[in-house]
């Protein structure tokens, strides 16, 4: 893996890390498997792209993207809580609807963002090497958002959210309306995913309706990878772990890309297979470690 590929993986890991935190909120905190993210990631990208190409400040466009993501998430939660549609199906419905909505928003499947302002511009203007700007800014975004989530989960509302996922009977008996908590939580999760999508689009130079495909796969893989490798005891540790899990997942892809194709029997089409194998290796790391320490004990 070259230095640039490493930096690239770091950048992608951090920017998708914001999405992974969103997936963590629904999948782990609320125990609500949410597939809306495949639609809300391009939704954030679409809203931000349209706003920027109409002259809005790229930073302000992130707020709009977050708001759109929140609405999308709360629709999934409303379908689930009020209409009693199973959470998986509710999220699938929102996801497929968003495909059409995103094309409406962009008035087409793709908006080019090459050559328009982005959140990377202020640092670019200072003369920092281009490839370092994105990981620096996205690192800052990811850290601030992680800190924000950790803080939030320690507030009364956050604690209620944790309890809603753990033991809905108990929290209902305490007089908390779990429906409101779920709507808020799934909304917040998708707001994060949409912000992640907006940042991804500004970085890759285009917003595309198909950019959300596989988001939930990457999100779940990152959450589980992070928890397995870095531990999940406590909210602080879990939040940091899933962010690092996202970076680790992208590092696996970067490594797979760097495996010299052609000289071995590998072809470019083996990429996903190699990535999967690398993730398996990473997941085994804690087990190998405990095995070694187990052997050395006696």
């Amino acid at each position, binding site marked *: *893996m*070259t*230095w*640039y*590929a490493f930096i*690239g*993986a770091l*950048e*992608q890991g951090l920017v*998708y890390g914001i999405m992974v935190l969103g997936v963590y909120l629904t999948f782990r905190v609320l125990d609500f498997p949410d597939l809306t993210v495949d639609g809300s990631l391009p939704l954030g990208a679409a809203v931000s792209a349209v706003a920027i190409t109409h002259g809005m400040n790229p930073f302000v466009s992130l707020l709009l993207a977050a708001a759109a993501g929140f609405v999308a998430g709360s629709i999934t939660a409303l379908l689930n809580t009020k209409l009693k549609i199973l959470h998986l199906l509710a999220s699938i419905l929102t996801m*497929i609807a968003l*495909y*059409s909505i995103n*094309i409406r928003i962009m008035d*087409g*499947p*793709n908006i*080019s*963002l*090459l*050559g328009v302002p982005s959140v990377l511009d202020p640092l670019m203007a200072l003369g920092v*090497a*281009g*490839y370092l*700007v*994105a990981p620096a800014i996205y690192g800052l975004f990811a850290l601030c958002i992680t800190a924000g989530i950790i803080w939030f989960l320690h507030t009364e509302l956050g604690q209620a959210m944790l309890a809603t996922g753990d033991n809905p009977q108990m929290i209902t008996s305490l007089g908390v309306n779990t429906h409101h908590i779920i709507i808020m939580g799934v909304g917040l999760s998708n707001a994060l995913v949409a912000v992640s999508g907006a940042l*991804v689009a500004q*970085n*890759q*130079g*285009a917003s*595309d*309706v*198909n*950019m959300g*495909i*596989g988001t939930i796969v990457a999100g779940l893989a990152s959450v589980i990878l992070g928890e397995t490798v*870095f*531990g999940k005891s406590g909210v602080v540790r879990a939040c940091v772990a899933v962010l690092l899990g996202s970076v680790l997942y*992208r*590092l696996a*892809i*970067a*490594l797979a*890309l*760097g*495996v*010299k*194709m*052609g000289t071995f029997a590998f072809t*470019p*089409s083996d*990429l*996903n297979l190699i990535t999967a194998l690398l993730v398996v*290796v*990473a997941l085994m*790391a*804690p087990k*190998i*470690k405990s095995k070694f320490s187990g052997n050395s004990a006696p």
Partner: protein
Amino acid sequence: MKKGMLMIMIFLVALVPAAVGAKTVTISVSQFVEHPALDAVLKGFQDYLGGQKMDVTYNVHNAQANMATANQIGHQIMGEKPDMILAIATPTAQACAQALKKSPHMQKTPLLFTAVTDPVSAGLVKNLQQPGANITGVSDMLPVGRHLAMVKEFLPGMKRMGFLYNAGEVNSKILVPLFRSEARKVNVEIVEATVSKSSDVFQAVKSLVGKVDAVFIPTDNTVVSALESAIKVCEQSKLPLFNADVDSVKRGSIAAMGFDYYQHGFQTGAMAQRILQGADPAVTPVETQEMLQLHINKRAAQKMGITIPEALLKRADKIYN
């Protein structure tokens, strides 16, 4: 735990052999997805340069239809420091353009795109005649009028033509108004049917049965990858099916006057050679494919219930029986 992770990382890095450094030309390729047409582009490109006895080392990457991976490939290519980048299809071309912009050491590296329909609206070039920077390439914009004329020649009495595409593919979406305006000139109505994934194709073609006299499928990645289901429905309902790429004729569509994507890659290879020999991409106009080939599948025509005019059979570059 950190130590364990580090050890695994070192182990994995050690697995990756260092790239060989030789005095040859290095071209890094970023392809969006595996797909017969896009694969043919790459093959045509490599065959042209191979035929010119150029000593080229290729780093071929495939994003497997994942935009995030396409971005990471951009970074991977930054590290490979190639002499030229070839981007196949729009999303990868945009990702590579963005990666170029961010890498100070590659401000002069030429980026050639190929199999991109509308490079201007994709933001890749400012102007087709004067690209203006280090990005240029070959566009696969369809000569819409010539396609429609071909279908009309097969079916002179056609009143309505179905147009099947994925509304999420920018390359297809921009063709819709072009087809509409050309069709109006010859009194044909265009009936759209859209899919969002390959598995929708069967149902979408079914929805056209009885409403149209023929179905036309453009160079749409999603639809073409599920072409067999369209062929099946068309054969069952005796609905003539035409395509915009010749590879599909072999698979069972009646005819296409189009692109041979292999030729498309071949033409891109010729452009690559000129640029590697010193031509400035900033003043190398974006090319389109002029040579169109007529391919006809006789058995498909029979199954879909039409007779092929003799004139067309005489003109055909290739006939499948």
